[in-house]
């Protein structure tokens, strides 16, 4: 027995809306779905006329529907927005390369410009390479932390006013549950906000905050939108999976519970006496961080030093690892100096006999070895100094480009002495802030462009 559409339009209903239980036909559903998002955008004042907005696009259902609806509404209600797509390429073969094809299709279908930023360009590492280093256990930490920052950087490059992400109501409810289970009170407070972003950062908005996943999927299906729906090849689906399974079981019994959880999140507050980590600027990369040095920089540091586990776990552990590393480096340095001294003696002998520095020998021995003590001093002016200077690797250039200083020692190119430019990488902040605050293990929604952002 067909059920008539609730609006009284005369057609038969095609779906039951989870939020209200109302049954609608296809056409009335399209209108209701889009109008609700319009209501969210205008009531919460997400955009201003003339804004440039980057839509975080992963090729998945949420971002595809978001891009489609934003384009539709921008035209229908004349928002005057300049919409563009922003994608992050983590470098995951067999997953992201495929989904990027979907994003490119979105670009053509919706006639929006598309910017793709890769981890390789930003950090010098692809996820495939990182997984080769770290294994599959903690790779989602890297992916999540890097992605969060990558979007910020991409948005900065595009010069947009804000980033719109595809978080839907289910995602937000799930995150509320997850933050309770993890005891992450700081995120619990933030995760239901429709618009996030502290000073100095590009705000992120969630136009689909009150839109159920079920309706997004039905909308995409009825509108025949093309989206990509494969799990990330690395996604272990750990903790978020539990919260997600619970939420889906609950939704089955009482679909309104997703909105109820969001309302719970909206009306909860952290008690005054509870101290939260304050947000500040990472001293290295200048992006927002709850630590002196942000998690992305710590992770990158670890990768580049061959200590991939550096950023996993607590900051005290990181410090210990770094201390061990430095001790070891120092020992290596001492050994090398000894070696060098021997060599230098030979060179000096050479210099004296030939009146000509064999700089090649100098250079070879010096490569990668950075120390106040240098053959330059002893070469008594006969060396061509500029040739002796170690030319740093590509990694260094990258680090410099993003203002991430290589914390070891740098060579002062125009003086006689080689000096320490950077003091040791500072992990010594005494605040008892857990570095895990920045941690974001991936989720069932790995590959969900927005899922790791802003929470």
């Amino acid at each position, binding site marked *: 027995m067909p059920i008539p559409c609730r609006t009284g339009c005369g057609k038969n209903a095609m779906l039951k809306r989870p939020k209200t239980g109302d049954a609608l036909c296809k056409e009335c559903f399209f209108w209701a779905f889009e109008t609700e998002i319009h209501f969210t955008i205008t009531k919460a004042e997400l955009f201003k006329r003339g804004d440039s907005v980057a839509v975080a696009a992963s090729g998945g259902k949420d971002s595809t529907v978001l891009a489609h609806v934003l384009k539709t509404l921008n035209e229908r209600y004349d928002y005057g927005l300049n919409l563009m797509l922003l994608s992050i390429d983590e470098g995951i073969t067999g997953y992201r390369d495929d989904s990027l094809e979907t994003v490119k299709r979105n670009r053509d279908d919706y006639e929006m410009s598309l910017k793709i930023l890769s981890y390789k360009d930003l950090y010098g590492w692809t996820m495939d390479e990182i997984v080769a280093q770290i294994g599959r256990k903690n790779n989602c930490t890297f992916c999540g932390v890097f992605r969060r920052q990558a979007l910020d950087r991409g948005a900065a490059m595009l010069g947009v006013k804000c980033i719109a992400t595809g978080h839907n109501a289910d995602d937000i409810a799930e995150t509320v549950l997850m933050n*309770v289970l993890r005891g992450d009170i700081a995120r619990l407070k933030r995760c239901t906000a429709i618009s996030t972003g502290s000073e100095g950062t590009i705000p992120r908005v969630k136009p689909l905050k009150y839109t159920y996943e079920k309706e997004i999927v039905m909308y995409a299906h009825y509108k025949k939108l093309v989206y990509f729906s494969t799990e990330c090849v690395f996604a272990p689906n750990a903790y978020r999976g539990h919260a997600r399974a619970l939420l889906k079981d609950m939704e089955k019994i009482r679909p309104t519970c997703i909105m109820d*959880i969001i309302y719970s999140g909206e009306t909860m507050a952290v008690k005054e006496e509870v101290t939260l980590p304050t947000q500040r600027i990472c001293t290295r990369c200048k992006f927002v961080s709850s630590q002196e040095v942000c998690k992305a920089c710590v992770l990158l540091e670890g990768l580049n030093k061959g200590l991939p586990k550096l950023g996993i776990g607590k900051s005290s552990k990181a410090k210990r690892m770094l201390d061990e590393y430095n001790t070891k480096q120092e020992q290596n340095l001492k050994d090398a100096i000894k070696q060098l001294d021997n060599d230098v003696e030979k060179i000096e002998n050479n210099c004296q006999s030939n009146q000509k520095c064999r700089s090649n020998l100098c250079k070879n021995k010096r490569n990668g070895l950075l120390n106040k003590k240098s053959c330059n001093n002893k070469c008594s002016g006969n060396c061509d100094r500029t040739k002796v200077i170690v030319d740093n690797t590509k990694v260094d250039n990258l680090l410099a480009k993003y203002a991430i200083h290589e914390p070891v020692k740098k060579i002062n190119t125009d003086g006689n002495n080689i000096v320490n430019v950077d003091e040791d990488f500072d992990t010594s902040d005494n605040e008892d802030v857990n570095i895990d605050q920045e941690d974001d293990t991936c989720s069932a929604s790995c590959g969900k462009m927005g899922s790791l952002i802003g929470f």
Partner: protein
Amino acid sequence: MYCKKCKDLGTLTIRKEHLYCVKCFMISVNHKFRACIGKNKILSSNQKVLVCLTGGQSSTVLLDLIYNGLLQDNHKKLRIIPFFLHLTGFGEKETDHKVAELVINQCKSYKFNVYIVNISKFYFQKSNTLPDINSLAETNTEQDLKTNLKNILKKVNPTSSNDIETKIKHDTFRRVAKECQCNFIFTAETTTTLAVNLLSNLAIGRGSQVEYDIGFSDSRDEIKILRPMKDITVEELHHYIQIKNLTHISIDKIQDNNLQSVIKQFVWDLQENFPATVSTVCKTADKIGSIDKSDKRCQFCKSAVVPNNEKLTAIEATNFSRTVSNFHLGQYLNEETRPKELTNEHDGSMFPFINEYFCYCCSKNYLESGNQNNNLFKDMLPV
């Protein structure tokens, strides 16, 4: 393998890793109970306390812990003047009787007296006469049937029904406490139960009430409900009951038609596989408050209603959803026929009387209990 505390043989495993001997284990549970009361500094000496019993595991252990506490001397003595209460009227008459008799026997073995109170009498019939101690009052008048809690809740969906029942129970506790001149109430929720309650609270929109529903003290009323078992886990209860060979009834039944049950199953599984998580969940609860402490109270659950300061919340979003599902595109686009803001059940609002008379969840309960709501909500609303 040795006990974690002393060098005796450990026979009890806690959280799959810590071994305890029986003696140290019992000391630790008693300590947790006493420390919980002590550190919260809400209960001063020699106060009258109404202890609410159910006959279940945690209630059985609470009774034993109180008895032990009262027996101690000097500084270790638990200084309260306890009154005991057991509510009936939730299930089938026979089961109800069996449980009540068990509770009477439990109390007798400690030489305590207990009031067996029918919830419908106190709550719906507004009786304020305490029954004789240790006796079961018969209930079968026509009036009793009409106001039977079970009958009233029969047509309400199971999730709302559970919630309403809890609220009515708490209200009844307070009514009885008033009659006994108690300013404090003890209930027996363990860490595990509270973790379930926290997630349930979130799932039905009572997030802003977590402080009162999950914390040590519910201070929404002058008469405060305290939860002295809040640091004890279900695992510890099992051990305690076995060691002391205490009789109790099992009331936990998992169903798949209500949120509370599904959450309970989830937390139990969690307890099994991630034992630290349950206490994490409860510690989180201690840090959660509400965005606003307004004086306006929900008529049903007495919680502060949260006034709407945000530009957009789940309430407007849901109501808007209802609006666009109820009207033609044409009606909506036309300024004159555009529906106004929905405020009550007659215009299709999903949240009748919200913020005026009810909090979010109670407003939903009111709507969902449909025609049955007369008995539940009649005195709270304007005529």
